[in-house]
């Protein structure tokens, strides 16, 4: 498990990106719930932490695909694949993330970069 940030440093409506590879973001919804999903949109290299958070959905800041924070499912094009979800919990005011062991659905350009190939 990875310490993400202090809960008091993550106000409702905000997101915190963890510098893991591939990056993961913790979202604090307006209703006070916490969710962690892969930060990279499955369509193109965009950070979902920069996106439009509304209810339990985040909209990609570039092309408006919406991901369900609870399930990782995508509701509309251009993205077609879900993001991974990760377990998140709070202990002594600290937000922790337990990373999923599933394979991530990364966009082609990012997958190539992580594999050491040309971007």
């Amino acid at each position, binding site marked *: 498990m990875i310490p993400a940030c202090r809960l008091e440093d993550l106000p409702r409506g905000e997101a915190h990106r963890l510098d893991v590879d591939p990056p993961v973001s913790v979202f604090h919804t307006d209703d006070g719930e916490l969710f962690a999903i892969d930060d990279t949109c499955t369509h193109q290299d965009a950070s979902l932490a920069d996106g439009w958070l509304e209810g339990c959905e985040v909209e990609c*800041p*570039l092309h408006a695909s919406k991901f369900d924070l609870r399930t990782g499912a995508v509701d509309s094009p251009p993205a077609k694949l879900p993001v991974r979800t990760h377990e998140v919990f709070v202990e002594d005011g600290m937000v922790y993330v337990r990373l999923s062991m599933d394979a991530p659905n990364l966009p082609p350009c990012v997958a190539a970069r992580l594999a050491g190939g040309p971007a």
Partner: protein
Amino acid sequence: MVGASLAGLSAARSLRKQGYDGRLVVIGEELHRPYDRPPLSKEFLAGILGEAELALESADEDLAAEWLLGVRATGLDHTERAVRLADGREVRADGVVIATGAAARTLPGSEGLAGVHTLRTLDDARALRGELAEGGRLVVIGGGFIGAEVASTARALGLDVTVVEAAPTPLAGPLGEAMGAVVSGLHTDHGVRLLCGAGVKGLSGETRVDAVLLEDGRSIPADIVVVGVGARPCVEWLAGSGIALDNGVKCGADGRTSLAGVVAVGDCANWYDPRTAAHRRVEHWTGARERPDAAVATLLAGGAVEPGAPRPPYFWSDQYGVKIQFAGHAAGADSVTIEAGAADDRDVLAVYRRAGHPVAVLGMNQPRLFTRWRKQIASTTS
């Protein structure tokens, strides 16, 4: 569903999502299943994305629709509730969604001249991609978004590129003069010649284009020409149907047309915009994606639903590695302020205001701040 691109597909999805379980027929003029058009001037044209990756449907998606592809609709008979097709067939329906899109405007006199392209469809993009691969001198007529993206892609492929724009400043319509100049400055930053205030008189060449002739007498040598001078709504097939047409299909704020049981979405639809109290035909991807939800609700409810406030129009463009994003209406603004970054660095967040209230926002490589402002504009102008 007349039209099988993003707006038509989104409407089909909305129908199923909103509980319609009856027969669903999707008519498309192109042979292809729905595909994503924005990459046609960018990653697809550059050879980075293949055709399979343009598909808008996911592999396991089943809308239980009948697809009539490769056939054009030629008429709408409202009394019979029927759509006539070019091959003589007729499709009867209880409800019709018009999503026939827009077609690229061409340059009069350029028909039949090899090397001259427009870019709207997958077939257009295939043809242009093949020619760009051979290199040479490209002249882009029109400094709008399609033209600018083609110039950017072609420059990255190593072509010699000139952009010819009739107006003094490209993109002044959507972005205003000041920011139009900043964004179109990307061309000269990257070694592309930008000729502004340059009206085009015609093209020269016998069987293949060899130059673009300007009204001021200049002749710009060209091996390939891309004409990017806008699009016109595809509504000719509706002539005589009795539907109200005005710069496309005239629609209310919920997609309803002048005919009961008929709604229109996407590039061909001129929706009433309550924010500006005027009709506005929006050719953005996000409009084609979002508005069918409301139009389908209207269709299913027989016009009894009150439409929610639409989000401000949003579009993006990728040019020379820079993410350009814009939301709102620039036309009504009386001031533009740079809130972050610097125009010269092409890394900028600019906010357009009217009487002190933000009405539009432009971002260049500023997705995080841009989204914040976009949300704020949506909340303050609704």
